[in-house]
């Protein structure tokens, strides 16, 4: 039995199904992100866990207790909002201590706890300030402290960094992770920023249009995407439009050059056009000739020197491939207009169709939920 169980939860607003058959088991102390574009249902699901929306069907169980029908103020959860939502009429200290005051804790205990939290968020001098006197980043730290003050069972964060500028976002992101690790609190984090999700999470739930596309660790989700959506949403992805030469052995051709992918394409016939996807870091400049690797030649369109990385953009018929190579002072990078050859493994290619055999190491969707039940 996991710490948080979301079981077959569905939420409809009239005829609009916002969340469909959502099932997830979260262990104690885990940091899970809900990742997806706007409108994918991630915030709605979070709000159902918090209790601000009621599932149309399904159950939510926190620490063994079925909370599906429980109002939010009895669930003992901590929530951090995108807009901070600090109470403007209270000081920072009063904001942080609010939950404890509601719980009727003695005054000295509240004072001690508030000081402890101010220390954790590095804002010891700010106790008497009012929210309107704080910057966005400071307000969000106070909001975090306020949520943690009541020692909630779950910490829920709804796009907490979206309203902040890039620099603050980066430092606050790390701070959130450090505090979470330090306190060991089970956390659900909603974001549309895949970099954020990957940097922070133990596991990511990728969602699209109300459905779960994949659940996995950042490594799994990036390297073994279950669907084309996951592949393109998480990290950058190259696309090659190729013609099928022999569907049975996965032989394809682009601009007269042939290459293989690691599996057959049963639903295609010779002559069909198929879209192959490829991660940029899996493409390398041709050095050694290795017959197992695919080789393609194209014209260099653009070379951007970024310091440790050199980003090369390659044109291949109508396709554009992006590849990153490490900077090497002894090796001159390719020049625009040059023709170069690149190689990549057949296994690195992603073909359309949701389940690729390359998922040998990852847990497919159905397996993880079966384990948790």
């Amino acid at each position: 039995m996991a710490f948080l169980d979301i079981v077959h939860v569905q939420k409809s607003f009239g005829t609009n199904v916002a969340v469909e058959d959502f099932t997830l088991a979260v262990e104690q102390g885990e940091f899970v992100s809900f990742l997806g574009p706007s409108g994918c249902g991630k915030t709605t699901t979070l709000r159902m866990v918090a209790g601000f929306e009621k599932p149309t069907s399904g159950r939510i169980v926190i620490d063994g207790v079925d909370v599906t029908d429980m109002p939010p103020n009895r669930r003992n959860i901590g929530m951090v909002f995108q807009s901070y939502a600090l109470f403007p009429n209270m000081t920072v200290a009063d904001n942080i201590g609010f939950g404890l005051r509601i719980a009727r804790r003695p005054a000295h205990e509240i004072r001690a706890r508030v000081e402890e939290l101010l220390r954790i968020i590095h804002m010891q001098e700010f106790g008497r300030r009012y929210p309107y006197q704080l910057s966005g980043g400071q307000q969000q730290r106070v909001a975090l402290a306020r949520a943690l003050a009541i020692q909630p069972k779950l910490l829920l964060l709804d796009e907490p960094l979206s309203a902040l500028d890039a620099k603050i976002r980066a430092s606050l992101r790390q701070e959130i992770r450090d505090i979470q690790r330090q306190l060991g609190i089970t956390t659900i984090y909603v974001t549309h920023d895949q970099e954020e999700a990957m940097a922070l999470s133990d596991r990511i739930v990728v969602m699209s249009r109300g459905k779960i596309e994949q659940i996995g660790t950042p490594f799994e989700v990036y390297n073994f995407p279950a669907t084309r959506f996951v592949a393109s949403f998480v990290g950058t992805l190259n696309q090659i439009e190729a013609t099928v030469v022999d569907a049975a052995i996965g032989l394809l051709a682009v601009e007269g050059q042939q290459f293989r992918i690691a599996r057959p394409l049963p639903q295609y016939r010779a002559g069909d056009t198929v879209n192959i996807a490829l991660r940029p870091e899996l493409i390398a400049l041709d050095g050694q000739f290795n017959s197992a690797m695919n080789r393609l030649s194209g014209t260099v369109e653009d070379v951007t020197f970024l310091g440790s990385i050199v980003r090369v953009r390659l044109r291949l018929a109508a396709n554009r491939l992006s590849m990153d190579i490490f900077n090497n002072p002894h090796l001159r990078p390719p020049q625009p207009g040059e023709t170069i050859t690149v190689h990549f493994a057949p296994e690195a290619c992603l073909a359309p169709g949701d389940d690729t055999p390359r998922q040998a190491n990852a847990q497919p969707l159905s397996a993880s939920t079966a384990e948790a039940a």
Partner: protein
Amino acid sequence: MAPLTQTKTNQPTLTRRSFSWTWVGVAPFFLFVAAFLIWPTLSIIGQSFLDQERRLTLQNILELGRPFIVSSYVYSVQLSAVTAIGGGLLGGLLAYAITIGGLPRPLRDAVLSFSGVASNFAGVPLAFAFIATLGQLGVVTQWLRSIGISLYPAFSLYSFWGLCIVYIYFQIPLMVLIMAPAFEGMRREWREAAESLGANGWQYWRYVGLPILLPSILGTTVLLFGNAFGAHATAFQLTGGGSQGNVVTILIGAQISSDALANPGLGNALALGMIVIMGVSIGLYTWLQRLSARWLRS
């Protein structure tokens, strides 16, 4: 915003000329306000400290202590306070009902539109409307009589409570117009944050909701007080303008037509008293609104 002169490098002559033109541009406003508002008002205030021989005196102010004047002020204050608190309460509840209370949107728009009209409908026509409703031959009076309840002579539209009922007709809409946006400015996340921290509805209102709204509510109630205190036409129409047992505004008005007090200095003092009270109430209102705006700035 850089002044225009700094950017006009190719028109130096216009630069110099336009500087003096600047003050010409706002001169009409200041002249107008000076002639029709500042000078007369200051003059009256100043003259309230002068006696018939134009010597400095506090006698006029002291004369405000005359019983019938004091009772007039008391009457005005009571009327204004009752209608401010009553109008504030009922207006606040109505504003709450159409915003946070969750009534359908068309209803909210209709109430706000109507409030815009009703707050401008005061004065003589409003008095007529209530005479037709609750006057001795009024429609509601007759209807109540037909079911056995006889309003008169116990109740009179021309008494204190009658005036209250009429005044509230323009007090409530003013409260609604000012408080509806304030209620709508209450963010949903505050409520949700409070609930996630364990608060129930009542606790939310007690610790978060009402404190946030309190400056607005208080400030607007004070504004309502000033609004009623300065009202003249409605009272005049209902009470006939007699200066006995009436509001201060009627008393002042009577000075112009008949100089009933035979002491011009006293009339000035009355006006001064009125300006002071209105000034304090507008000042309080402005201060409380600023406080509220500052909190809600983030």
